[in-house]
C-alpha cells in the first residue's frame, strides 16, 4: 500500500440515540481503514451496532461524532463507488430479475439500451442468465440474493458493503454464495475492488476475510483487528482455521 490513500477511512465514529434527554450510546470511537483489494468483516454480538456502523459507512445514517471518508472525501449516500447488499434481498416482487437488476442503474440516468447491456453482464456474472424474466417468487433464497448482488454490482462499485447477506439462507446455499463472492472479489475484470461485510458468524468471517474487526457488545467498541493470513481456498476443518475462530470467540464472549 505504501503511502497510497486508503479507499475508506472510518475516523473515531461514535453514534448515540437520545431519548427524553438520556443518551444511549451505540458505537464508541470506531476507527479503521480499508484499502483496495481488502476483504474486511465486522463481527460482534447482536446489538453491538455493527449494522448501524455499516449504514453510517455507506452514508445512510450519520455519526454523532467522527467522520467517514471515501477516497479522502466525506461519504454521501449517493456515492456511485459504494454499493450495498441487504440481508432481506430488497427485491421488488412485481419486477422480473432483469428489471430488479436494472433498477440499480436508474439513478445513473443511463439510457435503457445501455442499462440492459450492463444488467446482462452482471446477471451473467452471478450465474442468473436463464432467469432474466423470472419473478422473485420463482427463485430460491440464494437466487434472490444473487439478484441483490448483481444489482449492487451494476454501478461497478469500488467498495461492496454487505449486511449479513447470507444469514437468511440455509447453510448449504450460504456456503455456495460465499465462494461466489470470493470469486467475484478476486476477479480483476469485475467489481468490486474491496468488500466490507457485517456478519454475526465468526466462522463466516474467518472463511472470507483478510481482516476481521471485532466489536464489543453495546456500545460497540473495537476489541481487536486481526489479520487472517490463512491461504485460500480455506478449509473450515483445518485446525489453524479453527484456531482463529476460537480466538475471536474468546474476544467476544
Amino acid at each position, binding site marked *: 500500500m505504501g503511502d497510497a490513500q486508503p479507499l475508506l477511512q472510518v475516523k473515531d465514529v461514535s453514534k448515540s440515540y437520545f431519548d427524553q434527554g438520556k443518551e444511549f450510546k451505540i458505537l464508541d470511537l470506531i476507527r479503521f481503514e480499508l484499502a483496495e483489494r481488502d476483504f474486511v468483516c465486522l463481527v460482534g454480538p447482536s446489538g453491538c451496532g455493527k449494522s448501524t456502523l455499516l449504514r453510517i459507512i455507506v452514508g445512510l445514517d450519520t455519526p454523532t461524532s467522527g467522520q467517514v471518508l471515501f477516497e479522502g472525501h466525506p461519504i454521501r449516500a449517493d456515492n456511485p463507488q459504494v454499493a450495498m447488499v441487504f440481508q432481506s434481498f430488497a427485491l421488488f416482487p412485481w419486477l422480473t430479475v432483469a428489471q430488479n437488476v436494472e433498477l440499480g442503474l436508474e439513478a445513473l440516468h443511463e439510457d435503457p439500451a445501455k442499462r440492459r447491456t450492463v444488467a446482462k453482464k452482471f446477471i*451473467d*456474472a*452471478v*450465474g442468473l*442468465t*436463464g*432467469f432474466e*424474466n*423470472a*419473478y422473485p417468487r*420463482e427463485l*430460491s*433464497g*440464494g*437466487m434472490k440474493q444473487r439478484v441483490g448482488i448483481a444489482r449492487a454490482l451494476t454501478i461497478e462499485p469500488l467498495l461492496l458493503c454487505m449486511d449479513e447477506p447470507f444469514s437468511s*439462507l*440455509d*447453510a*448449504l*446455499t*450460504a*456456503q*455456495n*454464495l460465499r*465462494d*461466489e463472492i470470493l*470469486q467475484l472479489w478476486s476477479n480483476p475484470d469485475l467489481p468490486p475492488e474491496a468488500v466490507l461485510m457485517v456478519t454475526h458468524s465468526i466462522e463466516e468471517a474467518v472463511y472470507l476475510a483478510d481482516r476481521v474487526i471485532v466489536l464489543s457488545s453495546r456500545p460497540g467498541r473495537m476489541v481487536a483487528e486481526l489479520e487472517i493470513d490463512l491461504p485460500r481456498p480455506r*478449509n*473450515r*476443518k483445518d485446525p489453524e482455521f479453527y484456531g482463529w475462530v476460537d480466538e475471536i470467540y474468546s474476544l467476544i464472549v
Partner: protein
Amino acid sequence: MTDFHSMAKVSVGQILGLVEAVDEVGGVADAATISREVEMDVDRLGPILVAAEFLGLVTVEDGDIRITELSRKLLTAGVRERKRIVREIIDDLPAFRLVMEMARSSSTPLGRQEVVQALSDRVGSHQAEDVFNALVYWGRYAELVRYDSESEQLTVRVAQT
C-alpha cells in the same frame, strides 16, 4: 424419469454447498455428520442428497456420502463452466429430452398445461407438476429453456457458451 421430481425443491446452490461440505472433510462423510453440520434435518437434507445423487455428483451408500469426479470438476469451475457441466447432465435426462423434443417440433411456444399433460402420461399426475417445476428451474439455469410465468409459455433457448 420419476426421479426428476426430486429436483423440484432443490437449488443449484444447495447441491454445490453439499458437495463442498463433503469435499472439505476429505470427499466422504456420513450423512448424519453433514446433517448436523449444516443444521438440516433429514426432511430437508434428504431431497438435496437425492438430487445430487440423481445428477451423478455424489454416491450414497450405507449412510456414507461420497463425491464423484464430476463433483470435483464442478467445485473448481467458474460460473459459466458450472452451467455447462449441469447442461450436459440434464440434457440427457428422459423427462428433459421429452419436453425439449416437444418444444423443438412445435412451431408455437408450449403451454404449461400441454407440458404437464404430457408429463402426466409418463410420471402420473401427482408428480407431473413437480417435474414441470424442476424442468423450468434447471432448464433456466442450464440456459436450455425460456419460460414466461405470466403467459405460462415455454420455449427452447440457445445457451451461451
